[in-house]
């Protein structure tokens, strides 16, 4: 059974998506349990895979028994072994939370919604698990197309915002494909490990250089790396909260994974940091991304849109960390994939709860929210503290590694940008807390303050939220174990 985990991970959700779409015609109430079961299996297999990787090291799984470079192989090493459980568990938790949202907002579209949802997760898991560069493109398109569909189910402006995303996303995916095409021309292979083996004599080739740059631009477009971010805020803001709760935590993080995979496995650090040596410039781009993300977030008067700009800033954290070119920076970037997925999920689930009860997410709608929804806001505080980077939440520890990496690489601009973004995050979140805590203002001594009636979100939304919120603290406390047992093996030997 456990030998088949890599296949189960992708096949079960893929087939379930078909079943769900059929079940949607028969009885809409069947869709949700099937989706939960499918993602449950995926989560189970991904956790199982992680433990197998911890025991045995890298796992190579040949799909259909065809061996590479002819057939498609799935490589599960410490990097995707860590990212897979994150993707599947985040997707599962958001799925549970989305039940009530679907019932409230588009009950008759339950079938298509859950179909797209499970298909998208299939795509995301496939991207992470595959060891084939072209297969990755196919799965990327699966995840993207379903993502457009999910995001377009939302407010009036959602279809237009999504159309914009579709244009940009398609360009990004095409760039990636083009880059892989170049690689295929020069190496004759699509298997990542194989490409890496064939590339070293070709490091000086202009075609390889072009392939790398085109791939990177494509991936940066898909992950909304500033200034290629413009599609993200509107697309995420106007979507329904069930979709944004899936896509905001995962899509950008999976693309960061792809970037790190390209750097580490396909092109190898030797090419990226020694032959190419543009990493200082990329780190400065990341600095701009972090600062601009923070400043643009500051401008917003709308909780959800503010959070989307924080996502843009966080992408800068990870890109910068990965391109610092040292052990601490890369550790921070990989850790931050996990941490940022969890904390973005946490705050987007909070938005989901708020929209579900209050029907709005502008700052003006948040008055008195600590009294109305104390549990949701409690989890929001934990998520916010993690994004700010307060110990012992996990956000602190990835930031710790990132700053340490910046100091060791003498990239003080990146260090200042991280601190600046933390401080801006304090302002951003406490501005929201203030509205929820003070307004409507009580009189001078506060004696006549009448607490608002509590109207908390249902349990199916609170439980996933608290699972995530508590995991933020637990992941933070176990950072040492995660780094010692997993992340340090991600980084190739000899990488300082």
């Amino acid at each position, binding site marked *: 059974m456990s030998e088949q985990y890599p296949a189960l991970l992708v096949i079960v959700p893929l087939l379930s998506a078909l079943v769900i779409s059929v079940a949607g015609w028969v009885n809409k109430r069947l869709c949700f349990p099937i989706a939960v079961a499918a993602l449950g299996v995926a989560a189970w297999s991904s956790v199982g895979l992680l433990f197998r990787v911890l025991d045995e090291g890298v796992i190579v799984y040949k799909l259909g028994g065809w061996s590479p470079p002819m057939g498609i192989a799935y490589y599960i090493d410490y990097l995707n072994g860590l990212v897979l459980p994150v993707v599947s568990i985040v997707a599962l938790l958001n799925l549970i939370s989305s039940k009530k949202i679907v019932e409230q907002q588009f009950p008759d579209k339950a079938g298509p919604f859950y179909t797209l949802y499970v298909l998208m997760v299939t795509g995301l898991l496939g991207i992470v698990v595959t060891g084939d560069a072209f297969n990755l493109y196919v799965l990327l398109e699966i995840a993207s197309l379903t993502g457009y569909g999910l995001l377009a189910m939302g407010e009036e402006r959602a279809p237009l915002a999504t159309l914009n995303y579709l244009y940009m996303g398609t360009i990004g995916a095409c760039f990636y494909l083009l880059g892989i095409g170049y690689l295929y021309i020069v190496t004759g292979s699509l298997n990542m490990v194989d490409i890496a083996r064939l590339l070293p004599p070709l490091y000086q080739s202009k075609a390889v250089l072009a392939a790398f740059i085109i791939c990177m631009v494509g991936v940066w477009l898909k992950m909304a790396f500033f200034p290629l971010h413009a599609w993200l805020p509107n697309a995420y803001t106007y979507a329904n909260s069930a979709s944004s709760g899936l896509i905001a935590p995962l899509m950008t993080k999976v693309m960061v994974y792809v970037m790190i995979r390209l750097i580490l496995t396909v092109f190898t650090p030797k090419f990226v940091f020694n032959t190419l040596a543009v990493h200082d410039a990329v780190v400065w781009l990341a600095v701009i991304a972090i600062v601009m993300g923070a400043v643009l977030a500051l401008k917003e008067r709308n909780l959800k849109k503010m959070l989307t700009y924080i996502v843009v800033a966080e992408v800068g954290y990870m890109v910068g960390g990965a391109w610092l070119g040292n052990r601490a920076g890369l550790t921070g970037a990989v850790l931050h994939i996990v941490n940022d997925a969890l904390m973005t999920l946490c705050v987007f689930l909070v938005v989901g709860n708020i929209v579900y009860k209050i029907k709005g997410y502008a700052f003006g709608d948040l008055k008195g929210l600590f009294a109305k929804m104390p549990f949701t806001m409690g989890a929001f505080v934990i998520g916010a503290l993690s994004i700010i980077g307060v110990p012992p939440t996990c956000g602190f520890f990835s930031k710790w590694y990132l700053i340490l990496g910046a100091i060791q690489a003498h990239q003080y601009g990146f260090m200042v940008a991280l601190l600046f973004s933390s401080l801006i995050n*304090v302002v951003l979140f406490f501005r929201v807390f203030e509205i929820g805590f003070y307004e409507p203002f009580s009189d001078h001594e506060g004696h006549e303050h009448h607490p608002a009636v509590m109207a908390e979100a249902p349990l199916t939304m609170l439980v996933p939220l608290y699972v995530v919120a508590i995991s933020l603290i637990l992941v933070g406390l176990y950072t*040492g174990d995660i780094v010692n047992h997993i992340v340090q093996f991600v980084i190739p030997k000899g990488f300082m």
Partner: protein
Amino acid sequence: METITSIRPLLAVLVSLLIIPLVVVSSRSPNVRESWTFVAAVAKFLIVLSMLPAILRGTEIVYTVVQFMPGAAIRFRVDALGMLFALVSSSLWIITSAYSIGYMRGLKEHGQTRYFCFFAICLSATIGAAFSANLLTLYLFYEILSLATYPLVTHHQDLEARSSGRKYLLYVVGASIGLVLPAMLICYNLAGTLEFSKNGILAGTAVSPSLLFILLFMFVFGFAKSAIMPMHSWLPAAMVAPTPVSALLHAVAVVKVGVFSIVRILTGVFGIQLLSSSHLGMAVCYVAAFTILVGSFIALSQNGLKRLLAFSTIAQLSYIVLGVALLSPKGMTGGMLHIAMHAFGKITLFFCAGAIFVATGKKNISEMIGIGRRMPVTMAAFFIASLSIIGMPPCGGFISKWYLALGTLQAHQIGFLVVLLFSSLLNACYFIPITYKAFFCRPEDAMFENKVQEAPAFCVVPLVITATISVILLFYPQPFLRLARMMVQSITGV
């Protein structure tokens, strides 16, 4: 040095967190709810006390919660200084809890459940900071304390509370993220560890003097809770909080965590060898001396009683920093001892200010003429406590000031002796007239009618207790003096 591994430091931290669910559940029956606070307070004090004999024997108690990377862990180590601070804060929490009940119920404040919950978190963080074995753990509890204090400072939820809360965050959280965090990481990168050591973790590293100077002041100003000028102005603003919060947090726990952190930085991170050879100790002394004088001068001009006490606290906190930064054994003893002596005196003064507010609704000194005739117990306690702050017998404050003065002589710094004495004079100038006008005024000038009485017993008894302890500490300054001496001996060898 002998060390014992024991989970008791962690228990001492956690005990007040564990009762929070119980406090929330019993929010509808206030008496049950407050009894949980007492249970936690007494349990915390007893756990701390149970470690005292071992510490006095010269052993240290360590406990590692979780290790993140080499040299950076969440680890507790109870040494003499940590024990001194933990004893002060945990014992005063019991008294403050009683006072809180009298004050909050006397004024029928809203949100009392929230109040007691966050108070409990604050005390956990304070004890955690006291027992921290390294800079990372200290930073962790420092940040938790900053954030847990926020809902207490802004308890009234009005416009004034919001603007004070903003100021509080800007200074305290802004400085810790903006200055302490990078300084800590630079230290880690230089030394490869964050564990406090007797000689200082930066002692053996090749660091340029200018970087040392920058690092030191990133720490000193970054720990803005110590209210060293120019990072002080959050403290007067934070006086919008209910008085028990000002009493325990802004005279004892929060501000002393700031000072305590600076003491740890000076003794455990830099080490006195490095500080004296690079003359950086003197630089800190000058900043502290400036804060002492300016704080005392500003206090002279205050009319709001709590604001006056806040500026007095700003000045007194810098006594501690000055004493330790002198780097002479007597001065360091005096500085550490002052953590305890100032705590008992200042908390009494705040209790008195709160009792006056509960009984009469007055906040300003100009409105308190003749109040001593109506509230004689409160004002007598006020007088005793103000003597302790001035540094006169028969109060404990005399001892710490005596040591501080000897410390300046030992360090051959007559200038700082003058600063200390002049500051005492200023203290007398702003404290004595309050008591004088409260008792000695012409009957027609008295502002209070006969019906004004003492505040409820829950308010009065705690302040009598703390005032009494202030007096007792002069005659029996143990175990605080012994702990301070042990700490100084372990650092300096004298």
